[in-house]
């Protein structure tokens, strides 16, 4: 890789993948990292670890704020591996001039979100940087949890049912709209902790093969990465993928595909067909009433892809997100 870092390198699509694989994975190569899951399992233990840094403008948005995001986001990554999220470390990088009251609101929001999963912050760090060095506030959190059942994409097999836990793209659309001062009534981030919905799946002993929260790059990035890594084709029924009226309106106006926009409280799950009805039922009863079966993993001749089937008999690819998300001209 050569050249300079552009925003596309951080947007969760092809360019991010390339940067991670060609620079970071190449440098830090080891088998635990190479699994490329949302959380890694420490050798020979049941300890799952994940880290994430958060920067969002505006800091407070409909449905959440950077604090809620920093807690829920990392705890969700731990939960996606099949672990109970228990501990977090937190690092605050603060721009000179930030009002302490703003920081207090963020911290209070973090506390509230920790309570949702019963997790605790056990270590931290504070840095203040000169005005202009960053935009107000960045937070890094590292999460730890105890493994209950190892969920990872290598366990996905042909025939697995694919479930999406709720309406997609709400966080991405909400932030995009807030940043550009486009007002869409009812458009809110889906930012939330997923553990309360996932714990009952473990308690019921359901055999979940893999889970991914559909953050940057949206559900499209999850399914495409799964297709690339498993060699299976992910065949989806477009009409069954939940999209809210607000997000649909946003997408139509700006010409932005909802499948590539980030979720912060929606995840994708692969399970054996025998378990999928029970998974959906439990998700419905634990805060995700729109969870839906959207397709299956299949073996096909040729290259593995993600296919989107319409209700009227046509099909198309669901593309791996790539480049910065830009609105169309007209």
């Amino acid at each position: 890789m050569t050249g300079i870092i552009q925003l596309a390198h951080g947007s969760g699509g092809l360019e991010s993948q390339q940067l991670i694989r060609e620079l970071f994975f190449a440098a830090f190569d080891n088998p635990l990292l190479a699994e490329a899951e949302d959380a890694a399992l420490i050798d020979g233990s049941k300890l799952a670890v994940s880290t994430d840094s958060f920067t969002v403008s505006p800091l407070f948005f409909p449905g959440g704020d950077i604090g809620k995001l920093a807690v829920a986001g990392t705890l969700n990554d731990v939960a996606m591996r099949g672990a109970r999220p228990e501990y977090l470390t937190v690092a605050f990088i603060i721009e000179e001039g930030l009002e302490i009251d703003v920081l207090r609101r963020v911290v209070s929001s973090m506390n509230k979100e920790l309570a949702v999963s019963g997790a605790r912050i056990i270590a931290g760090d504070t840095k203040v940087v000169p005005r202009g060095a960053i935009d107000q506030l960045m937070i890094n959190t590292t999460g730890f949890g105890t493994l209950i059942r190892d969920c990872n994409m290598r366990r996905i097999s042909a025939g697995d049912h694919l479930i999406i836990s709720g309406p997609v793209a709400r966080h991405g659309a909400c932030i995009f709209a807030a940043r550009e001062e486009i007002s869409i009534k009812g458009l809110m981030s889906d930012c939330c902790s997923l553990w309360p919905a996932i714990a009952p799946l473990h308690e019921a002993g359901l055999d979940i093969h893999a889970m991914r929260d559909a953050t940057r790059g949206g559900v499209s990035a999850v399914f495409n990465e799964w297709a690339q890594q498993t060699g299976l084709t992910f065949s989806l029924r477009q009409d069954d993928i939940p999209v809210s009226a607000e997000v649909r309106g946003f997408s139509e106006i700006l010409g932005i595909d909802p499948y590539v926009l980030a979720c912060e409280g929606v995840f994708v799950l692969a399970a054996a067909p025998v378990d999928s009805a029970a998974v959906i039922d439990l998700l419905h009863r634990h805060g995700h009433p729109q969870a839906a079966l959207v397709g299956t993993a299949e073996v096909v001749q040729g290259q593995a892809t993600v296919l989107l089937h319409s209700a009227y008999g046509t099909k198309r690819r669901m593309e791996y997100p790539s480049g910065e998300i830009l609105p169309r001209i007209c």
Partner: protein
Amino acid sequence: MKATDALLQMVRHRDAIRAFAERISTAAASLPQPLRIMEVCGGHTHAILEYGLDQLLPDKLRLVHGPGCPVCVLPQHRIDAAINLAQRPDTILVTLGDMMRVPGSRGVSLQRIRAAGADIRYLYSPLDCLTIAADNPDKTVIYVAIGFETTTPMTALLLEQAQNRQLDNLYIHSNHVLVPQAMELLLAGGGAIDAFIAPGHVSVMAGAKQYQHLVEKYRAPVVISGFEPVDLLDAVLRIISQINGGVAEVDNAYGRFVKTTGNDKAQQLVATYFEPHDDFLWRGIGRIPGSALRLRSAYGDRDAEVQFPECCPAPTEERPGNCLCGSILMGLAQPTDCPLFAVGCTPQNPQGSCMVSNEGACAAYYKYRRES
């Protein structure tokens, strides 16, 4: 947004789509020969590929994709101008989103220049330039305007308001082009196209009337369409009906937004501030008489090409590369006919303009239809 959802449920309803597909099949059976229908607009091309509408049509009907993607037809010397303008000292360059990733002749895009430090912003409403210019009185604010008849009125309105508010630091680099002139070139060029699906948003502004002379002169049906599956299938059906009935006329199948006369106020604004010129060399196509718009000379003090000529290279014919973009834009080839498609040419590493822009036909095929 509930209303949007309700509308979409109608125009994307599977029963309606299937019913149209069946009626098209039946009607196409009586066609004397296969039909080549061109959708001029890049938005239509994307809708056709996104919904897979071509998969619903009988073999006798071939949809070919036209030059209606403003970024695809923008010649490299004009992209170079935008890049040069962005690198002027104390300058804020403002444009529409799709312009950000198009590389100029040196392989560098606005996105890349921005990452290297230039102040480049994209926006949805050109009128946001007024705020940027007012907030930055010590900077030169240049709006790189691009688009067909749909976006020109907003540029004209921007100019009018900049005049009214005496925002002397705001300039415009006009890359506005016109649809009927391009359609005429295609019709005059050898009869490869039997009928047109005419653009929806362009026609909202310019009116159904702007195609009348083409229909009379070349006897090819022109049907104006919206962007939903039902709209486009309806347009195809209406074209077949015209051909079967031996007529050629302008038919407005997007009546919920398009009037015969179009948007009078928008047209007046454009006429006040812009005049046609021939110096725009459509990429892959070349010079089309009277097909582009520049600021009238009375507004030369707002025209970036007049004020910063050192940044704006003279029009030069481009050497066609190995790709088939020129033929694709003329409707003579499909993206998958190109030997570079998805092999040497991808959205991350585009060789031709049809792959660069999101609205381009090659980008649409790559996104929705690529086999591997």
